[in-house]
């Protein structure tokens, strides 16, 4: 992660200064932080929620909470990292809430988070459309997007933070409120499920391509 830019930008002020001014009562200073870090937080939110509407809500809520808790921001981490964590925490809460709501609506419930059945990957495979229906890399990406949706909120959070944002296990563990060893397992479980979802399209040599297409 760490696209967060703390340095002075053209015509702008540093994150640290913007935080200081906001705390001193200058509300407009917070605007600098929002405008600077919104895209970054949006990418996390989109990858976690899987749709633009939910992602935008996560971003707004993260910055609102950041403003309310700004006094707790110790200043020993950069603001981008801090608001990123707030967004991750909020997004995982949302995912869990949604999952619970879905579970209540659907009678044959899915296994609870972290609970593996006899074949934890079967669910992913079953949900997969036949290879013939897939064509082109866009569909492959869509397939992966679908596979991501089948992950538990913790697995999804773990893989997003680990793969796209390069977060350390400790950092992910803090968001998952879990131990480091349990978090490592969660990341691996996510990878296993994704690998299983992708296996019909992975050919010898490790390249993935949709049926009927050349990669």
């Amino acid at each position: 992660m760490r696209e967060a830019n703390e340095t002075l930008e053209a015509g702008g002020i540093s994150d640290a200064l913007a935080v200081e001014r906001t705390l001193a009562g200058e509300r407009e200073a917070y605007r600098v932080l929002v405008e600077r870090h919104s895209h970054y937080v949006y990418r996390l939110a989109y990858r976690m929620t899987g749709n633009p509407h939910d992602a935008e809500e996560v971003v707004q809520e993260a910055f609102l909470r950041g403003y309310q808790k700004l006094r707790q921001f110790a200043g020993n981490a950069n603001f981008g990292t801090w608001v990123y964590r707030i967004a991750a925490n909020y997004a995982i809460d949302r995912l869990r809430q949604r999952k619970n709501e879905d579970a209540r609506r659907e009678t044959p419930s899915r296994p609870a988070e972290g609970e593996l059945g006899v074949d934890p990957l079967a669910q992913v495979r079953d949900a997969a459309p036949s290879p013939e229906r897939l064509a082109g890399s866009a569909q492959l990406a869509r397939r992966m997007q679908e596979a991501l949706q089948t992950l538990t909120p913790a697995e999804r959070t773990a893989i997003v933070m680990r793969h796209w944002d390069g977060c350390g296990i400790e950092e992910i563990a803090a968001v998952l409120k879990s131990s480091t060893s349990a978090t490592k397992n969660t990341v691996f479980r996510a990878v296993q499920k994704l690998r299983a979802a992708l296996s019909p399209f992975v050919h010898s040599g490790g390249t993935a391509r949709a049926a009927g297409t050349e990669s």
Partner: protein
Amino acid sequence: MKHPSEEELFAYREGEMKDRGALAAHLAGCAECSAQLEKLEAVFAALDGIAVPDPGQDYGARVWRQIAERLPQKRQNWWASLLQPQRLLAVGCAAALLLAAFWAGRVTKKPNAPAEAAADAGQVRERVLVVAVGEHLGKSEMVLVELSNRNADTQGNKLINISSEQRRAENLLEENRLYRQTALEGGDNAIASTLNELERVLLDVANSPAEITPAQFASIQKRIAAQGILLKVRVVRQGLRDEATGRKQPLEGQPGGTKSDSNAKARNKA
């Protein structure tokens, strides 16, 4: 070497395997395991193929417009947070003690000379403060001792609940700020400095989640030990206790200051 498990292959890919050399050598000669590793790589390559829609150049400005109205016009000052119901009790006690100190200074015997009156008032005020800060340090010490002595299973995975210590630290924080401010204004730099260090540790505890991992808990314990804050709190507290019971007489008769000024100087010197 026997064929590595998928988990070991993943650990190898993540750079988290200790004996990488052996596995690398195995991979060089084992087509089956190499293919397994490539399948894992294919997962990450496919993930990279998922595009994030561009929310637009002006997205940051849009987010600001959406949340700006929901932000309070002006952030609360630190003292405004003291008025939150759950903190009122702790703050009320601290404020009452400060008020008592002030009032005691006004109503005690009215001596003839104005200079003497000022000195006596200062003395009584100081006495009440000494007791109040001493009590505060005692309560803080208890929280820190409990955290330091708690024998958590740092090897296990079970989360540790520190919600009780967290709440107490949160309440103590407000008192601490008041006393630190008062100590600073009174020129009591030694106490102000200890309270300042204490505040940072209390802040760490108060801002931690209610349930933390053993590693996070160990890190809090380490911070308490590293700053030597417990020892400092004990030393200052003992000094204040001695002063309150009259066992240790502060320096007196220094020119250019009241007796309470002298007390502060004596503590700073100590």
